[in-house]
């Protein structure tokens, strides 16, 4: 039973080894004297091991004399023995308390700040705002007022729609949400124009509401009004303002230029390697160099290890292992035909990611030019897309 075990722990008990021949007699005598033995195990024919309380152990002396066996203490267990151990080892006790209090003390600081949820706003921008509030790594947790921080963040960075500050262990996690850039839909009853999103050649124009200002085959520039929401009324002096609607399909061009040198210098590794280590504590750097780098030209590789990251606590200790690999410069002349192919594919891929998904590709053209040993590849893709964008009519129109 757990309660009995805890009781025994606080009273203190000893594990004893009993050696002799009539050990059953020993047990019977012990219980007749009200000495409680527990966990009695037979080790071999002449030995038993058992647990007995410290008070009971003293009383066992009589029993031992009567039975004529030998009793040895194997282990002392329990709280009283732990205390008496510390009596002789005061420094150990002080050290234990010191280390615990040190951990408690150190965990009352914020050692790292994480910003999550931001895509367009840079971490530095948010941290800058925090610094204006005098919040940085190494401040006490109690000085960081969560509500104040989130309010200041929302006020000073307009693009944020939400900011939540959470302190987890020694880490401050700032979770933000950015305002979505979704086009503000213009209400159906608000007069508006439709303007061109980009330079294009009109292919087809369907007007559902409003007045078309352009015709098929016309070249329009970015921002040009395609369908006007202002309709002149013959009966009155004031023009009629409507919410224009319609689709304008137009031919647009997308191009991508990729430059690739034909003659390339490649660094080939010789296999010779030279490594050094560096320890970074906060902003201090300690170089552990053994001599100069023995290579003329080399590639450097950095391996950063955050040895200070202990899960809950993150100390600013980082080791950097620099590996210098000796390289030989080799000049290679690339095959132009192969190069043309790869650049064309690469250019097309990059273009396709830029083209809106609803548009349809009409033609693709690839042009090559060689200029001073550099292959210039231009990929042009023509697409038909809807270029109309609604723009609110203001009073000045």
């Amino acid at each position, binding site marked *: 039973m757990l309660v009995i075990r805890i009781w025994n722990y606080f009273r203190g008990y000893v594990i004893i080894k009993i050696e002799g021949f009539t*050990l*059953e007699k020993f*047990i*019977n005598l012990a219980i*007749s004297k*009200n000495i409680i*033995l*527990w*966990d009695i195990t*037979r080790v071999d024919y002449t030995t038993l091991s058992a647990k007995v309380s410290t008070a009971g152990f003293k009383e066992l002396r009589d029993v031992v004399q009567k039975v004529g066996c030998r009793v040895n203490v194997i282990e002392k267990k329990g709280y009283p023995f732990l205390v008496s151990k510390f009596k002789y080892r005061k420094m150990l006790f002080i050290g234990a308390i010191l280390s615990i209090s040190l951990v408690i003390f150190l965990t009352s600081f914020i050692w790292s700040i994480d910003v999550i949820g931001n895509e367009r706003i840079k971490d530095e921008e948010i941290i800058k705002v925090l610094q204006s509030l005098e919040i940085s790594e190494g401040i006490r947790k109690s000085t960081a007022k969560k509500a104040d921080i989130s309010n200041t963040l929302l006020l000073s960075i307009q693009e944020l729609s939400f900011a939540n500050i959470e302190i987890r262990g020694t880490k401050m996690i700032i979770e933000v949400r950015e305002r979505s850039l979704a086009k503000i839909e213009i209400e159906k009853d608000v007069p508006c124009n439709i303007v061109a999103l980009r330079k294009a050649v009109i292919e087809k124009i369907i007007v559902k509401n409003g007045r078309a200002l352009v015709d098929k085959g016309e070249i329009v520039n970015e921002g040009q009004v395609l369908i006007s929401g202002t309709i002149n009324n013959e009966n009155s002096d004031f023009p009629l303002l409507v919410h224009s609607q319609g689709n304008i399909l137009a031919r647009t061009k997308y191009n991508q230029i990729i430059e690739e040198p034909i003659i390339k210098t490649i660094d080939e590794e010789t296999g010779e390697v030279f490594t050094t280590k560096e320890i970074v504590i906060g902003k201090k750097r300690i170089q552990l160099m053994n001599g100069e780098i023995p290579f003329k030209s080399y590639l450097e590789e950095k391996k950063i290890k955050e040895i200070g990251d202990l899960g809950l606590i993150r100390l600013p200790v980082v080791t950097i292992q620099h590996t210098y690999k000796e390289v030989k410069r080799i000049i290679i002349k690339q095959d132009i035909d192969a190069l043309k192919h790869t650049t064309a594919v690469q250019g097309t891929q990059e273009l396709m990611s830029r083209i809106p998904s609803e548009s349809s590709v009409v033609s693709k053209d690839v042009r090559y030019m060689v200029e001073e040993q550099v292959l210039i590849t231009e990929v042009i893709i023509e697409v038909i897309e809807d270029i109309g964008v609604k723009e609110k009519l203001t009073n000045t129109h």
Partner: protein
Amino acid sequence: MKKKIDDMKKNFSEILELPKEIMLDFPKITFIGNLQLYIENHKGIIEYGSLRIRVNTNAGILRVVGKNMVIKTIVMEEIVIVGEIDSLEFT
């Protein structure tokens, strides 16, 4: 004479439905599966080994045979034996 008194006790307890272990000073033995065995009202241990334990009682010597048997606790009135108990018999 003693047998007569014992018989009387037995009949008496049967009539009044009194617990026999108290009236007759008999052991009360409780098994928990084959893992644990309580013997209340014992009269001391005669033999103790990990394979065989013999306990003296008023109803005769109780022999417990099993494997890895350990006396968990032992006090005046009660023994708790833990282990794989195979058989139990009075001899």
